[in-house]
């Protein structure tokens, strides 16, 4: 794959989101805020149901980034959470190359990233990442 500014990366889909996936992320990250798996607590806080941790979406996006750039190393990764992700949502991770700069022993690729949730095509996460690709890599 040849990357140029404006190149779009292959959309990576995850889901549908299950309570098991949310609880697994809670266990793996140590984030046990019960708003994400305890329906009564979520309702008492004014939500219609439990919703996924923002960082679960970010972790899935991280997986997409690692798959898009195997063998490269992430220099920066920043996200903003725009909307809740509910059970049974399907998530699509997208990326677009916005800059490519040469650096010592390789290049740094900047990508704009986003996650949308269906149904409704809601934008749930936006962000950007910088990835260092060593010379001679297949990217």
């Amino acid at each position, binding site marked *: 794959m040849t990357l140029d500014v404006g190149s779009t990366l292959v959309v990576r889909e995850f889901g549908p989101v299950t309570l098991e996936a949310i609880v697994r992320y809670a266990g793996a*990250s*140590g984030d046990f805020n019960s708003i994400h798996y305890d329906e009564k607590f979520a309702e008492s806080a004014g939500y219609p149901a439990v919703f996924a*941790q*923002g*960082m679960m979406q970010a972790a899935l996006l991280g*997986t997409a980034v690692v798959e898009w750039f195997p063998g490269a*190393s992430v*220099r920066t990764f920043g*996200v903003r*959470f725009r909307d809740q992700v509910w059970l049974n949502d399907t998530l699509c991770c997208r990326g677009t190359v916005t800059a490519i700069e040469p650096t010592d022993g390789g290049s740094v690729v900047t990508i704009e990233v986003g996650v949308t949730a269906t149904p409704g095509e809601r934008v749930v996460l936006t962000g950007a990442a910088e990835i260092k690709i060593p010379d001679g890599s297949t990217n």
Partner: protein
Amino acid sequence: MEKQVGPRIPFVIEEGAVRQFALAAQMKDAWNYGPGSVIPPTFLMSAAMWFPPGSRVSSGFDRARLLHGGQEFVFGGDPPRVGDRLTAQDRLADRFEKTGTTGGRMRFAVVVTEFRRAESEEIIAESRATYIEREART
């Protein structure tokens, strides 16, 4: 007075913890993580597991009104790998307020976690969390 800087907490990037995280992140090759593997991009969030009670800097926000607004990671030098010994330390970087689109007052707190190599004390990663507290419903 509010705690602005927490203590430095030592921890090891454990293989099992990284695999569990990679599985939770639905990585196809989660089982390939082993000694020396570069960690998944957001793995350092799980540093939460190594902080003893009371050693984190907290936003102090009401859990029912708490939103995670954003998260940023910056890595420098050689990336963190399975087996590395690091320290993690929180600091409160910023607090501010904004009026939301519906007129409600929202409070913000930015907590930065600094990751250093345990031996050289070189900073190799920084994680920046923005927390938001929605206004109480009346």
